[in-house]
């Protein structure tokens, strides 16, 4: 299933709130966390990372993986952490109202107005 617009950024920030990760680690974190519900495309992810770094929500540097391979590691900046908090709140309330609206329509449809 594809992600809703804007939710990828929030999920990336959330993933990195656990600690520095490289791109594939972030992919795994999201895919595993959603039990395969959300599929992450590499290009979209990396673009999101670049975008977030540009906004100085992330910091990046090349590092070495457990398998001794080079990878670009990302970590949250204080601004990123603050942004994640704000984004979480607004996404949560958006999802709640979305759910409420979607369920409300099925309930009231037969009655009409």
């Amino acid at each position: 299933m594809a992600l809703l617009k804007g939710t990828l950024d929030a999920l990336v920030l959330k993933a990195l709130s656990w600690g520095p990760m490289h791109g594939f680690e972030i992919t795994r974190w999201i895919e595993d966390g959603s039990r395969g519900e959300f599929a992450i495309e590499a290009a979209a992810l990396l673009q999101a990372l670049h975008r977030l770094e540009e906004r100085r929500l992330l910091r990046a540097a090349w590092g070495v993986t457990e398998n001794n391979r080079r990878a670009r590691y990302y970590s949250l900046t204080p601004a990123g952490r603050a942004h994640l908090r704000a984004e979480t709140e607004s996404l949560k309330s958006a999802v709640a109202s979305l759910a409420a609206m979607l369920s409300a329509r099925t309930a009231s449809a037969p009655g009409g107005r």
Partner: protein
Amino acid sequence: MMPGFIRAGVRRLFQLAVRRPEEAAADAEAELQSLLDEHTRYLTARGMAPDAARAEALRHVGGPLPRASILLHRSAKRRERSLQAHEWLEDFAADLRYGLRVLRRSPSLAVAATLTLALAIGANTAIFSAVSAVMLRPLPFAEPGRLVMLWEKNPDFHWDREDAAPANMLDWREQAGVFADVAAYPHFAGTITLNGYGEPRLLKAQPVTGNFFDVLGVRAELGRTFRDAETWEGSGPRAAVLSYRAWRDVFGADRSLVGRTVELGGRPVEIAGVLPARFAVPGLDVDVWEPAGWNRTDRTQIWFRRAHWVRVIARLKPGVTLEGADAGLQKVVTRLQHDFPATNRHMGAGLTPLHEFLVGNTRLPLLVMFGAVAVLLLIACANVANLLLVRAAGREREAALRLALGAGRGRLFRQSLAESVLLAGLGGGAGLALGWWGTRVLIALQPAGMLPVNDIAMSWRVLAYVLVATALCAVMFGLAPILWAGRRMPADVLRDEGRAASGTLRTRRWGDALLVSQVAMALALTLGAGLLVRSYLGLQRVEPGFDSRHVLAVRVDLPGIRFDSTSKILAFYGDLEREARALPGVEAAAVVSAVPLGPPSWSSQFAVAGREALDGQVVHRELSPGYQKVMRVPLLRGRLLTAADRREAPYVVLINQTLARTYFPGRDPIGQRIAFDRVPDSSSTWRTIVGVVGDERQGSLSEPSQPEFLAPYPQEARSGMTLLVRTLDEPALLAPAVRRIVAGLDPDLAITSIQTMDRVRAASLARDRFLTVLMLSFAGVGMVLGMVGVYGVVAQLARRRTREMGIRIALGAKAGEVQWLVVRHGLVLTGVGIVAGVAMALGATQVIRTLLYQVAPSDPLTFVTVSSLVLLTATAASWLPAARASRADPCEVLRSD
């Protein structure tokens, strides 16, 4: 995995750019590959075949690989660019904070630099405000570029750009074919009495032709302006247009005033309209505009073509160039020369863009002042640069250490620049405030009419100028320490143990060069001021030909409507003179039509009975018999006027010495008969010369006396005369008594002006004094800055050589010899500066040649005096720090470090 972060952290600590945009693409590519590798490895680890795993990973890229690559390159590049810009800004903010800390650590430097810059930028702001308002701002008229001033010239009288004869102007208007319309206004300021609004009040009045406002393209704020026909309404029913200022200040901004009738000049006048607030003609200060009021019959009168007294403004037809307009004008001029040989034989004409004409004579003084403040700014910059250089030498070790630790030179450069930007900003801000105040002072102190604009305001142009000047300053004095700091090898500096303040040869050379230029510029500025001072002193010493002390001058203009006959006018001035003479403390009294050094009187050609026609111009005045006694003008030949030279008596006239010398060389003028016409006819009045009196300077102290006729006022009555009273005591004390006499004679009469002749004389020099004082104050500031520079450089040298001086003194050298080591350096540099300054000034002072009175631009006395003064001051400025350094205890000095 952590080391990467540490490295980035260190990078950021040193504030170095992370990556260039070109490298960002390669970076993104590597990242994509690493992601694919990880994915493949993940899948293989879960038992997939390597090839299948790779294919699966590629499927998850989200599109074809090349396209993904391009997208990622783009986003990575954008990221780097944005990060870099951000980083640069952050660095700059950090540099500014660093600069602020540094400045706070040395507040005396900050204060000195700010003050120096504030003075220079303040002076620049004020002068540039004037330059901008006078020279750069377009006139407040419609399409001002199409407006020209038309004028007349005549080689016979050395006339150029002179007033035109109204009849000629009317012919230009009708025949030239290149002007959309031509308007005129008499070139003399008039006054008019307003009655019925409290005390009788004098307003400044200016007659204009009816089309004047249409030519300028100005519409009334309220009511209307004049109609073309109103030029010709003679002395019939009259209308007036008020300036906005008069409407507001005199009539309380009463909107119902328009269309009403008020008593102006003793007769009812309809207020036709009010002009907009921003309307002003440079050089004209007017409350009430009146129609010219000529008569149709005037046009055929010879005086309408012989007398030259109107300024003419024309609007070019659309598409007509200046050359085209001039060609059209010259055609008419040639025709008039042919048709009216008696008046126009050699009368030429020309045109000048209106703006250029109106501000023309203010241009040079303004540009000179502008040049002076620009030089002042350079001196200030050099001064601050030297201050920073001295300080940079003190911080050499710090800079070396930072270089050694890996800071880029570029970064040091920027830090230094940030500091100078900070200093320049402080100085610029303070200077702007100072300049705002200075502009007000400039307006308040300017002699009337010097700056031909009603208001000089801060404009975007002034702000832009200050901003640019400030930025240039920052670069100029920021550059000096940078250029030097860029060269030194850190290792060399760090090896120079403990002698941090020693400075290098390079710093010294820079400082020396700055000092030389500073001295040179300060000297050039002072030389310019010196020349003006000498010229001004010379002007003050000019013998005006009369004794201005203890004389009160009271101008009274009689409204023609009530004083409509010569006998009424003569009766009034006769009573005025008699009653004034009877006042206690009055030695003598007389009336005269124009005081010397005041507004000009009229002039004409003349003829001597029995001689060829003369091509010459003489000025005229009318006066009462006591004039020479009041003004202490000597009688050289013949007799003075007496009470017997009445209206009915034979017509007589006095001449001044210049006239006698010019037109009667080697002959006795007494008894000769003259007429005020070039070619006398049966209508001419013949007068007999009865006396020769001493010359008075009529126009200004800087111009020689003109040939002059002095006629008894009963024989040539004027409705505007000045009462002159010679007193035993301070003349100003007599003013109330004279006011009472005037009020007693006619309670509805307003006095035009009351001032002492000393004041009149001083006012005639107001413009020279204003320029001299301004220039002198700029030179003074420049000089102080220059000397502070000398002091600073020598003090630094003394500090550097304190150790050496201590050793020499310990070895038995005398304090004087040791001091000389340092003083010599200051004097040599000053000497070089003086030579350079003199060379500079020899070129520059040519520009002010026309502003000088009987002083050559390369006046040796001024040059020698000012140069010696500079040398003397520089000696003192060098000796002070040298003496202090040599007094230091040798033991103390040798023990330190």
